[in-house]
């Protein structure tokens, strides 16, 4: 569960005055430098709350660092509140006698002479100190910033003065002007947690949007909802088969189909952002699952963490290659949080839960999910500290899924060795031996469990042809399971939807197609595709394509309007449907249509809806 307190050694997003966010790792005893905005000790934000606004203060004469303070909301909004109070909100300011920005009432933007503290300008611009009107050079600005006096406010003041046309500005553009300059120089920042919405936003707006296939928040939300992705049941584990090192394949724990539940099949070409979004919806993204940490007092929390780390260290030293299976052991079908005391598990113990899991099929030999690193998870690490994804995320290649016999990891029988022989080996060799056996058992389990099918849903954001993805994944979906596929472009999804067109379905169910003759329902569910019918058109129901777009508005007293500075980029599309279980044989699809006399509630149906769904 994610915390509202900034923990040491976690990734956070810093939102700078410019509105730009940057991700950093909060390391104790570091100095965090915001470049031109200044710098401050990282320890000043550790165990402080997220979302508050900090301001870098002026360095105290006896200190080598700048402290920060929390800016109260009343101060953040002082200017807006002042605007609200002006009698006519629709046309603010223009009260010549009243300074737009005054020093007295603590409003942040004091347009004052830095030396005398005297007010130098008003909205009408009539009291402008002529000397102050000259344009500041870039050098002077730098100088001012270096001095760092008055937290950048006087830089703003000077800059505003330097704008010779200030007095000619309308109140509207004046406000805008202030805002712009403010964004640039005021030394304020916010710390935001790195969660899926924030990471996606950051990657989209400030990094490379193409790396995440332009997956915007609206689309993440739609794809997850239509995929019906949610907590898929309390964790259930297979019993440890207690394989001794002399045993081979025969000792593997058999798959138990009835235990497999709440599993989502995923194809992710967004570097792990999609998997992260799914994991977040399933409650397996954040490293600290025990939420009660927040309710523990500081001391207890720290002790607990230290204890956990100590245990971890001990484990690490125990054997050359301890990995997560040993960190703590799945009990015999134990439930999360109720795991019994640690017993060293055998090589063939399956660390994965049988429920609430994500299965990623990838096309390279290793999964590419680097974004999960922000939540302290590495899908390709040979060993791993405890993380919910260790037990709930499984990865396999398309080759392992479709032709496992060609995959070495799957098809090479496990090593065996007598205890005597094992004892004679160097620890590193022994470690290697166990690692290989564990890898074998896991690969077997992941492949078999995936091939067993019965998935609760399919969610994709991939550059691969969606038709080919569905060809191989439709048979793996449980009846009624949703399919939810994102694409940054419409065409691939349109081609997919066309495979399920009314005319295709009608032709298919007419039972007259030569391709279908003498095929059972099961065979047709594994339809390999033909030119005429790339997919079995009766395997999906309610196919639909949609797109969503959020438009942001500015809401200010008298100045509420859509933002013009909206980022461009692609809209993105989502294809949705549900997996059907077609009845065997020819299915008549006439429908009893009493023309003219429509049934209640069906009057509004479109023509498409009227068409028999064959």
């Amino acid at each position, binding site marked *: 569960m994610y915390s509202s307190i900034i923990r040491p050694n976690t990734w956070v997003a810093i939102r*700078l005055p410019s509105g730009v966010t940057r991700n950093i790792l909060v390391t104790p005893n570091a100095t965090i*430098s915001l470049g031109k905005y200044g710098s401050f000790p990282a320890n000043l934000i550790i165990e402080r709350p997220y979302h508050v606004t900090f301001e870098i203060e002026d360095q105290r004469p006896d200190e080598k660092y700048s402290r920060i303070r929390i800016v109260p909301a009343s101060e953040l909004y002082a200017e807006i509140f002042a605007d609200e109070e002006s009698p006519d909100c629709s046309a603010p300011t223009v009260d010549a006698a009243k300074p737009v920005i005054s020093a007295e009432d603590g409003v942040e933007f004091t347009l004052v002479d830095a030396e005398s503290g005297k007010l130098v300008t008003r909205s009408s611009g009539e009291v402008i100190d002529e000397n102050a009107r000259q344009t500041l050079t870039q050098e002077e600005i730098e100088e001012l910033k270096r001095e760092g006096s008055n937290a950048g406010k006087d830089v703003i003041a000077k800059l505003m003065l330097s704008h010779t046309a200030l007095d000619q500005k309308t109140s509207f553009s004046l406000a805008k002007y202030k805002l712009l300059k403010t964004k640039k120089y005021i030394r304020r920042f916010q710390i935001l947690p790195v969660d899926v919405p924030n990471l996606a936003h950051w990657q989209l707006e400030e990094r490379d949007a193409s790396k995440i296939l332009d997956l915007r928040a*609206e689309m993440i939300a739609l794809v997850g909802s239509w995929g019906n992705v949610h907590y898929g049941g309390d964790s259930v584990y297979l019993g440890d088969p207690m394989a001794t090192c002399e045993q081979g394949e025969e000792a593997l724990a058999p798959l138990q189909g009835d235990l497999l539940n709440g599993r989502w099949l995923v194809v992710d070409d967004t570097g792990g952002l999609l998997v992260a979004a799914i994991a977040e919806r399933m409650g397996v993204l954040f490293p600290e699952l025990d939420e009660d940490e927040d*309710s523990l007092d500081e001391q207890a929390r720290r002790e607990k963490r230290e204890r956990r780390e100590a245990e971890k260290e001990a484990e690490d030293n125990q054997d050359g290659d301890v990995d997560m299976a040993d960190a703590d052991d799945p009990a015999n079908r134990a439930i999360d949080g109720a795991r019994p005391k640690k017993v060293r598990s055998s090589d063939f113990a399956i660390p994965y839960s049988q429920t609430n899991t994500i299965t990623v099929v990838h096309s390279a030999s290793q999964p590419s999910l680097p974004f999960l690193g922000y939540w302290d998870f590495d899908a390709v690490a040979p060993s791993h500290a405890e993380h919910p994804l260790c037990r709930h995320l499984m990865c396999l290649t398309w080759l392992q899924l479709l032709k496992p016999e060609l995959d070495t990891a799957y098809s090479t029988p496990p090593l065996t060795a007598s205890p005597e022989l094992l004892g004679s080996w160097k620890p590193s060799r022994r470690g290697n031996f166990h690692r290989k056996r564990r890898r074998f058992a896991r690969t077997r389990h992941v492949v078999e469990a995936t091939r067993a099918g019965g998935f609760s849903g399919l969610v994709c954001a991939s550059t691969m042809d969606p038709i080919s993805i569905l060809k191989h994944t439709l048979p793996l979906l449980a009846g009624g399971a949703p399919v939810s596929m994102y694409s940054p472009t419409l065409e691939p999804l349109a081609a997919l939807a066309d495979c399920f067109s009314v005319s295709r379905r009608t032709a298919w169910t007419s039972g007259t197609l030569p391709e279908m003759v003498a095929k059972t329902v099961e065979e047709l569910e594994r339809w390999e595709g033909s030119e005429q019918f790339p997919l079995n058109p009766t395997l999906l129901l309610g196919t639909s394509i*949609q797109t969503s777009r959020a438009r942001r508005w500015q809401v200010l007293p008298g100045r509420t309007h859509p933002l013009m500075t909206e980022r461009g980029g692609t809209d993105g599309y989502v294809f949705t449907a549900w997996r059907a279980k077609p009845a065997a044989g020819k299915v008549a699809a006439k429908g009893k249509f009493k023309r003219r006399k429509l049934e209640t509630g069906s009057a509004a149906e479109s023509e498409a809806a009227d068409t028999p769904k064959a």
Partner: protein
Amino acid sequence: MTSTLPQTVSPFLEPGPRTKPNSLAVLQLSRDNFVPVYLQQASGEHDGYVEGAVINTRYGSFPHSTLLNVPWGSQVRASKVDTGSRGRKRKWQLDEEAGRATSEPIEDEKETGNGAGEENGDGDEGKQLVTDTSGFIHVLPPTPEIWTTSLPHRTQVVYTPDASYILHRIRARPGSTLIEAGAGSGSFTHASARAVYNGSLVKGKRPGKVFSFEFHEERYHKMKKELSDHALDGIVQLTHRDVYKDGFLVDGKSPEADAVFLDLPAPWEALPLLSRQRPQLREGEAGEAGANPWVSPLHPKKSVFICTFSPCVEQVTRTVSTLRHLGWVDIEMVEIANRKLHTARDRVGLYLPVDRGVNSSAKDIEEAITKLTEIEERFRENARPKQPADGSEPAKVASKAATNGKTSVDEAALKYPWLDGRLVTRGEPEIKTHTSYLVFAVLPMVWTAEDEATALARYPIGNEKFVVSLMGKASMKEERREAMQQKQGNRKSRRKDRDEKLAEAEG
């Protein structure tokens, strides 16, 4: 709330592999026509009939027995039902039982039997149902998305494009505690329940909860019933309440919410009661302040995310202003435009057979020219004296050559209507109108001077050893590497590897 009966998990959350008796299922009649239904086992008398219920649709009759215990997603054929012996009796079950209000005529027929070859213990065993050729339906597990389109509307509802975005933005996740007002028709409630659900068996884990409020009595009761029918009453706690007046505590206790959704006509009336500190008294209110200690409905140690949903800008302006005065930050207003796209095969051509969906005009310039030439030829032919001296028909021959044999219809053209024509996409015929404005904001936790002193004592400053800079990517990497060298242990270096991988991924 705490029922002694074993709580069944909602079919919305864990539907299992097959349809079950007395549980909600959704029948898909046609593309966008969903009918929610509680499947019943045929067991003795049912409303004066000896057999179980039958659902009648325009695609035929479907005895419940044919829909029970089948895999979800199953296509089920209509059955011939015998209506003769008792005659027809129509019961229009409109809104009579919440959720069962299908506005479809539900007929109880004198017929039962074994559906889909499954053994059905009750009723007239052995009597086979006869498949009717009138059609089929599909049976789907309920989801918030389907429910939203098929629920009995009692108010305006929040649809999936908005609901999904809102839940994403207010960080409604497994284990979250969400306050919702007003419940209305429960569309958003169902999506929320799915979002916060985090199981129930684990001790020490705080269960995800939705605290929902509705002051309209009839709606409250309907929804209460619906929640229990859907086995969601363990997750959603519905309270009959005017939240403007009486706030959000339940049984005097704080729900400790970390997410809030307000779909109310005047959110600003409710906002002061969602404060961390005692709200200032509004004008006209009795000054009983201080009588009871103020209890905030919000989680004291978490940032709280809020969304308000309002149809017009005036409401938004007022809401935003109130939020600012109450200390909410990161206030943002967003409008979601959602569009459905339909695909079709555009079939255009002069020589295509006349068929539904075929546009009989020239598909390109060449075809137009061909046709025009044809017409000209025919015109000239008609203008010519009927019987030329030599008796030959040169004009016709020429015409045939010009049109490449396409005098009338190209019969081969539509052999595969699903392949012919150009694949096109079209937006929805009716342009989706504006739904509502969404206002988002965050309320950070309170940070006192004591909190600050504690934190400062635990993480003293002045011992800074290295600089982490946000500026250039290259320098960032360099600094991070340096930072890593300060630490020891292989766990740290593993993290370092990861960071580098991240940096590369971003690069």
